[in-house]
């Protein structure tokens, strides 16, 4: 080992307490960086999974009048399903399943209280293949018979009705007529997606069709692909058919997830800025420590230079000292961050009690889970090391710029 490495190590160990204090911000910053980025990544992935599994599937075929800005379907946007489109969906090699939906807004009443809800008329078999929703019904159901209703968990809590109760669903029909339908409660839907659990009810698609007087028109066809990465290839394949029907258009889950992506990037950006500031503070701490070390050892450095030590050796020694502090701190931060990341990824943080009914922008209701990604931990650790190296350059540069005679006085 070169003598300058020995000297650097000896110097680090000479002032243990100062070295520890210098390392703390980097340890904390690195651990926080791993924790926060893991959580944001996990939440982002869970949000997208919740959206695709319970709401959007991989792709939806909707009416041309459907607007993402309006964020909802109305009976006015219902359309007839062209036969060749249905045949195509049945035969496409990319499609795992597809389900027709009648989506409309209404008011659900138990005769005493009334609540605004989103209603989805679905076919049990097709919907079960396309979404996970109907597997999350309690008590489990094997059919969605006519005349029954499945209610989001939180809606049901609000009513506190006994099993087999009759709910009245009031809405406007396709022509705009004020009407209502009586439906027997058959189970509650608990998906963990707040949009579903807090606002959505499910009924048989035939009931919805008759009630709204739609004459077999529907609001959307949800398409689930065998492999989600084939989305663009599938869109290219279906486009010529959709073009034949100007009243229809395609919406991918990514377009429906635009809010999640926007919130995620905003949160990632703000968290990164915050953590970057912590690491800069850590870097300034390292620079300060090295600078103190430089001033304390000015004569020692002068002697080394007088005896023929090159400038690069002096710089390497101090940079190595800073890099070592940064490396050890980053390694400790990585270990701490990985422990925190493992906790948030495998156990999660239940925020249900804190947020309750508040819309936090993500389609997650209670448990926030992180993404366990060791590469992320290594990247954060490497960042800590870079901070250490960068922070020690300036003090080392100061030393070699000093006149040797002045340093020896």
């Amino acid at each position, binding site marked *: 080992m070169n003598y300058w490495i020995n000297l650097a190590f000896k110097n680090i160990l000479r002032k243990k307490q100062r070295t520890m204090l210098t390392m703390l911000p980097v340890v904390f910053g690195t651990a926080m960086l791993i924790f926060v980025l893991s959580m944001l990544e996990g939440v982002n992935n869970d949000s997208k999974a919740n959206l695709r599994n319970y709401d959007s599937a991989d792709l939806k075929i909707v009416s041309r009048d459907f607007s993402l800005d309006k964020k909802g379907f109305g009976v006015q946007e219902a359309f007839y399903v062209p036969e060749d489109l249905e045949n195509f969906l049945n035969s496409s090699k990319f499609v795992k399943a597809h389900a027709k939906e009648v989506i409309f807004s209404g008011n659900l*009443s138990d005769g005493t209280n*009334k609540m605004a809800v989103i209603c989805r008329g679905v076919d049990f078999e097709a919907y079960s293949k396309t979404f996970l929703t109907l597997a999350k019904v309690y008590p489990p159901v094997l059919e969605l018979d006519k005349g029954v209703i499945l209610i989001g968990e939180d809606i049901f809590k609000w009513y506190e009705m006994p099993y087999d109760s009759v709910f009245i669903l009031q809405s406007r029909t396709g022509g*705009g007529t*004020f*009407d*209502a339908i009586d439906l027997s409660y058959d189970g509650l839907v608990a998906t963990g997606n707040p949009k579903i659990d807090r606002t959505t009810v499910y009924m048989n698609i035939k009931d919805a069709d008759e009630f709204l007087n739609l004459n077999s028109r529907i609001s959307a066809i949800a398409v689930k692909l065998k492999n989600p990465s084939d989305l663009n290839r599938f869109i290219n394949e279906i486009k010529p058919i959709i073009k034949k029907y100007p009243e229809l258009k395609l919406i991918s889950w990514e377009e429906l997830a635009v809010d999640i992506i926007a919130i995620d990037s905003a949160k990632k950006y703000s968290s990164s800025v915050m953590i970057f500031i912590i690491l800069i503070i850590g870097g300034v701490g390292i620079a300060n420590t090295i600078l103190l070390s430089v001033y304390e050892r000015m004569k020692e450095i002068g002697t080394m230079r007088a005896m023929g030590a090159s400038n690069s050796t002096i710089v390497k020694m101090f940079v190595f000292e800073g890099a070592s502090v940064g490396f050890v701190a980053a390694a400790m931060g990585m270990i701490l961050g990985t422990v925190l990341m493992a906790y948030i990824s495998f156990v999660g943080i239940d925020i249900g009690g804190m947020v309750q009914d508040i819309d936090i922008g993500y389609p997650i209701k209670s448990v926030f889970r992180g993404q366990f990604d060791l590469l992320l931990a290594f990247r954060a650790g490497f960042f800590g090391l870079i901070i250490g190296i960068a922070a020690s350059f300036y003090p080392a540069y100061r030393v070699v710029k000093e006149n040797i005679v002045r340093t020896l006085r």
Partner: protein
Amino acid sequence: MKKIFSVVFLITLYLASSAMSIDDVLERVEKNMVRTNATYLSTMKIFSEDGDRSMQMKMYVKDEKNVLVEVIESSEGGKSRFLKKNDAMWLFIPSAGRSVLIKGHMLKEGFMGSNFSYEDISENRKLRDIYEITLEEDSLYYILTMKAKTDDAPYKLKKSYVMKDAFLPKKEEIYSSSNRLLKEFIIEDYKEMNGINVPTRILMNDLLQKENYTEMTYDKIDLTTKIPDSYFTKAYLER
């Protein structure tokens, strides 16, 4: 024998001629309900479990197609104006400084959060054109049962209990297609003015929600002063 037949025939003819037809009842009710050239000062109170609200309004009615409503005071402090011109309905909020056309699904919403929809206020079509109407009667009321015959009728099924002495609906019941009673419109009070019976207090009950109803009281009614045409313009609405 011939004489007896003649007497029975004459009695039947008399009864038939004195019985009210659906059109007669509708015409008499319309005479009382549909106003021309009327100015009202009214108070609307909205009662619900979330809290009660009230507002005072001035209404100018030239005819069915020209109506101006000004909210001059409200418990929430907001003021606004509505103009119904032919089939269009405009809302003007002074603080926003511009008017908005109320159309499509917005017409189905409650007027100022009340149990009356904008559509209840803006409907211009004749009942005969949108409902299949049958008539029954008892000692107090003509009972008109109206079943929607068009896709865009405001309600599927409606029963109107028209008072025989006043030719005003004492109560209108609004049902779902499965015969569940959803809403009730009640004329609580009325008075005779210039030979017509004018409702002075009406209620709209939402029966899907406990203690949720809207009460409209007409405090001042003027049926004689002519209202200038300029009142029913967008310029006047946005003044």
